[in-house]
């Protein structure tokens, strides 16, 4: 499918247009002509938008910022695939040379019950922030940390934590999953912090609270289809989901049977 020549190409884009969250949407076709194949898909949208603006029409709204695959803002379903035809890249790293001359490219927003559409190609992923706020942290007050080298961390553990930490919070895993599950995203954060010694004190509450929040926000269950890691621009492994499931079970068990400390506080009369 890759256009190997450096000849310019022309395509038709079939874009989801929806004026606002509470209004119906539909697909609209736009021509995009004479494109340099080294142009990115987002730059192609810029060109189409310039044309629309020039004649006073509403440009296609789409989310983007860094345009180099790290901020997690871009979020397009391209020809049915979250982040498009290539493995391990974000929408902004998709180039026009990936498409045939004269083809029709369908572009939609990430869709999921918990990601309502804001406008056109933009969906609201603030549910991810809410999950993070429920427990995706280590409670450390600024200024109270010990020396950074006081606790050595084996290199393989640090490397594995880094593999998980690379998640860019884009939500492609949710958009790719038929259950709209957020397990890959949540497991990446839970695993990163759960692997490190600094994350141990809150390990149980973290996984319980983040999973509870995820369920509350309407994300679906994981049925092990692994569409999530296939769509993930950072190739986050679904092994982290298994790791989180083990953590979750252990935490539920420990919480149920943990002896409760006597209430402390006040300091007595």
């Amino acid at each position, binding site marked *: 499918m890759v256009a190997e020549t450096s000849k310019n190409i022309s395509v038709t884009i079939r874009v989801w247009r929806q*004026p*606002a969250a509470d209004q119906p949407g539909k697909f609209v076709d736009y021509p995009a002509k004479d494109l*340099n194949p*080294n*142009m990115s898909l*987002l*730059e192609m949208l*810029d060109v189409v*938008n310039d044309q629309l*603006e*020039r004649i*006073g029409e*509403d440009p296609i*709204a789409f*989310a*983007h*910022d*860094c*345009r*180099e695959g790290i*901020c*997690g*803002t871009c979020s397009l379903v391209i020809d049915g695939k979250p982040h498009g035809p290539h493995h391990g890249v974000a929408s902004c*790293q998709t180039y026009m*040379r990936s498409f045939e001359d004269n083809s029709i490219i369908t572009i939609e927003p990430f869709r999921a019950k918990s990601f309502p559409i804001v*406008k056109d190609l*933009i969906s609201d*992923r*603030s549910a991810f*922030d809410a999950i*993070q*706020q*429920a*427990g*995706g*942290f*280590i409670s*450390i*007050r*600024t*200024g109270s*940390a*010990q*020396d*950074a*080298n006081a606790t*050595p*961390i*084996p*290199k393989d553990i*640090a*490397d594995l*934590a*880094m593999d998980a*930490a*690379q998640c860019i919070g884009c939500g492609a895993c949710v958009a790719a999953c038929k259950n709209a599950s957020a397990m890959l995203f949540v497991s990446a954060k839970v695993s*990163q*912090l759960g692997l*490190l010694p*600094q994350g141990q004190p809150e390990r149980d509450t973290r996984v319980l609270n983040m999973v509870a929040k995820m369920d509350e926000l309407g994300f679906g269950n994981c049925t092990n289809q692994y569409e999530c890691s296939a769509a993930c621009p950072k190739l986050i492994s679904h092994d982290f989901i298994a790791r989180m499931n083990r953590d979750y079970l252990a935490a539920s068990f420990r919480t149920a049977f943990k002896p409760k400390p006597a209430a402390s506080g006040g300091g007595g009369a």
Partner: protein
Amino acid sequence: MATLNSNVPPGPLADKWRTYKSNLKLVNPANKRKYEVVIVGAGLAGASAAATLSELGYKVKCIVFHDSPRRAHSIAAQGGVNAAKNYQNDGDSVHRLFYDTLKGGDYRAREGNVHRLAEVSVNIIDQCVAQGVPFAREYGGLLANRSFGGAQVSRTFYARGQTGQQLLLGAYSALSKQVGAGAVELITQHEMVDLVVVDGHARGVITRDLVTGKFHRHSGEAVILATGGYGNVFNLSTYARGSNTTAIWRAYKRGACFANPCYTQIHPTCIPVSGDYQSKLTLMSESLRNDGRIWVPKKKEDCKKPPADIPEADRDYFLERIYPSFGNLAPRDVSSRAAKRMCDEGRGVGDTGLGVYLDFAEAIQRYGKQVANRANLHNPSKEKILELGEAAVKERYGNLFDIYHEITNESAYKQPMRIYPAVHYTMGGLWVDYNLMSNVPGLFVLGEANFSDHGANRLGASALMQGLADGYFVVPYTIGNYLATVKPTSRPSTDAPEFKAAEENASSIVKRLLAAKGKEPVNYYHKKLGLIMWNHCGMARTKEGLEDGIKKIQALRTEFWANVNVPGSGDNMNQALERANRLADFIELGELMCRDALAREESCGGHFREEHQWPDGECKRDDENFAHVAAWEFQGEGNVPLRNIEPLNYEFTKMSVRSYK
């Protein structure tokens, strides 16, 4: 005329901050929650400040234009963060980091600020590790370091090629903890469009909700801006597309001085522009210059030929030729300017002629033979050497070669990379004193948005350090000193006339933009502005060029307001309007940058005036007349702004000539 007192405390350099800190006024813990601090921005600087101030007990409101704080442009930083930990035992110290940073900035930063930055750098690493930032480690489990430009020690901490991402996610997690606990009110997708000043003090901001288009008023006892850099004034840069100047520009128009706006860093190794549709330039790490050789054809007519067809004798390895002692590792500003000169002579490569080669062929041969030798392969075939050499280069730079391939569809193993300098960082920003407070009391400015610590040139891996220093370890102390002088819960009502006036100002700009209904899209003007800035206020500046640039920008401004077409309305999500609103400010800022560059009749760091150079092309500073900060003060629409001066008094260091020979 603004009063610019740096407020750097007296005393020996190494004791200034410690002594000052212990004498700062404090706010009673029970009173802290009666103070509301409005923070705009949640990059490294804003998120770290928001988390820490709320931990201290202040009521905090944190506003970002992004849909999540985790998307701030800090996420894109690659290389690393400096800290004077001396874990490598290679002789690093707070003083050495201080000195390197000051010298790297070509002696145009304050001694006191830079020393404090070096001091708190060590706390940053402790803090980040405690938060779970997975820095690179050695086999023994201790933290690893790499070396960066401008230093002779190894003091840069990193997390693969994603250091900014990991540091930001650490600060974001600290912020999220406070939001989850109800201690920070987080407001996303709101753009700050004006600063509210009441009785001479900053007391709030106006925001526009980017989803509904509605304006909102936010009142507080203090305001913090941590809104990042303004390099997108050049249109093409390594910045994220959304990075903008609106927050600090509108604060400037409310009286905050803008310091050294012309200090811009242009990074030599970026993937070049490939066409006029281009929206963004991508950085290729400086580390590549360890092994890559930079060249252009000697003859103009060879420029369009495939590089392999150009024989060795017809190649000009211009850095090696002009700077024999530094060669391909000549400093950033020098290398950038040299590449530009080659292209200006018509010897640039690639479709646009704006590119130079970064060639790994020799490195591949060298490594191939080395590996073969080590493996005791005698008389290896050419193919074998190539195979081994490519593998060795891949091990070192594989991810960068992959990015290059993704963008250009070319293999840098088979043919040289094409690179060109690109705008990367802005050292200028709102003027702040030692407390990080601007000349408008109650307005604090952190991170890349202020001008504080990098002088005329920033060293690699020092921006992340500064952002986190400001937010975690400086402003939490210094803001108390200000708030202790403000009555608790004395923030004005948002019905105050100043709020009303500021909102009307912001909404009138939006209305004017929508009313223009001209013929050209916003991007058309952004591209035009970018070209003017690049040609007149870019890597090499001249008096005539800058004067001409000012005229062109003024004309562009008139044309923009008359002929831009912003479709749609102001009462829903309108991305064209967002871009137009930001561009209106960039155009005005561009003019100020040219004025600043014109007034600074010297060359220093990233600011190169062709009239002021040594015979060898190095920057010729003029310490007698320009050892100062230029802080521009708005004088009303249509009037020439006032250039205020804060002298740089060096007590401990000698301003010397920065030489790389």
